[in-house]
């Protein structure tokens, strides 16, 4: 039963974290280069612009869900299983989500990078 709980929490981490990443990435592209904005305006203006973005807030909510799922998973299983399993699956899920929702050009180079990193993370857990 504990095994089922752990993997359910890992799946929840992957879904919530990928949704959060996509929403946050989209929000930050809308906001623009933070370094440039900071030079032209001030830090409170930049922070206000980010915090007023609805996708940013929704992204934070998804990340919060992922964070609490991670805490659940860590209380049921070792970080050496939860961390790499969730991270490896999130890399692949993010590449798919970024291509579909963010229209990023996920070429061979990026697919190979995502798969190499995901594979490497799994081996690190071994």
């Amino acid at each position, binding site marked *: 039963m504990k095994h089922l709980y752990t993997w359910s929490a890992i799946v929840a981490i992957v879904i919530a974290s990928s949704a959060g*990443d996509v929403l946050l990435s*989209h929000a930050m592209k809308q906001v*623009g280069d933070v*370094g440039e904005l900071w030079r032209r305006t001030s830090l409170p203006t930049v922070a206000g612009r980010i915090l007023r973005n609805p996708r940013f807030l929704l992204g934070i909510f998804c990340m919060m869900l992922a964070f609490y799922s991670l*805490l659940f998973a*860590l209380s049921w299983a070792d970080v050496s299983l939860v*961390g790499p399993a969730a991270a490896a699956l999130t890399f692949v899920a993010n*590449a798919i989500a970024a291509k579909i929702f963010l229209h990023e050009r996920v070429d061979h180079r990026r697919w190979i990078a995502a798969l190499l990193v995901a594979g490497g993370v799994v081996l690190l857990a071994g």
Partner: protein
Amino acid sequence: MTFRKYLVLAGVTVCAAIGDSLLSRGMKQIGAISLHHLSTIILCILNPWVALGILFLLGFFASYMTALSWADLTYVLPATSLGYVFLALIARFFLHEQVSPLRWLGIGLISAGVGFVTRGPALTQDPARASPRSEDQVEALPLGDKR
């Protein structure tokens, strides 16, 4: 890519690795959380290790958001995965843990993945597509809308 941008990516990597280690230590102190005592999961942020971990994760979040403002998600994620390598090296050289050949292979694969992605462009998305011309358009634009 400028030196400042590489520093931001390094910030994402280091803060995430340290933050995760601190959270893990804190949650091991707290022990298994039962579904019948959900309040424990809220109160666990009072644990000093968890609190310090959250502080580092805030640093991670600030640098992550900065990186996402000028680079693709599929660039930032693999590029910052060097954190796993960083953690393994800390374990080997500071905590004197044994790192098996399989783990060294994992480190090699991650490094190769990072090398692959960082040799390509950081941004492939058209920024004009994401930048709204007015606040109203931000509200009206559904996620993934092709304009």
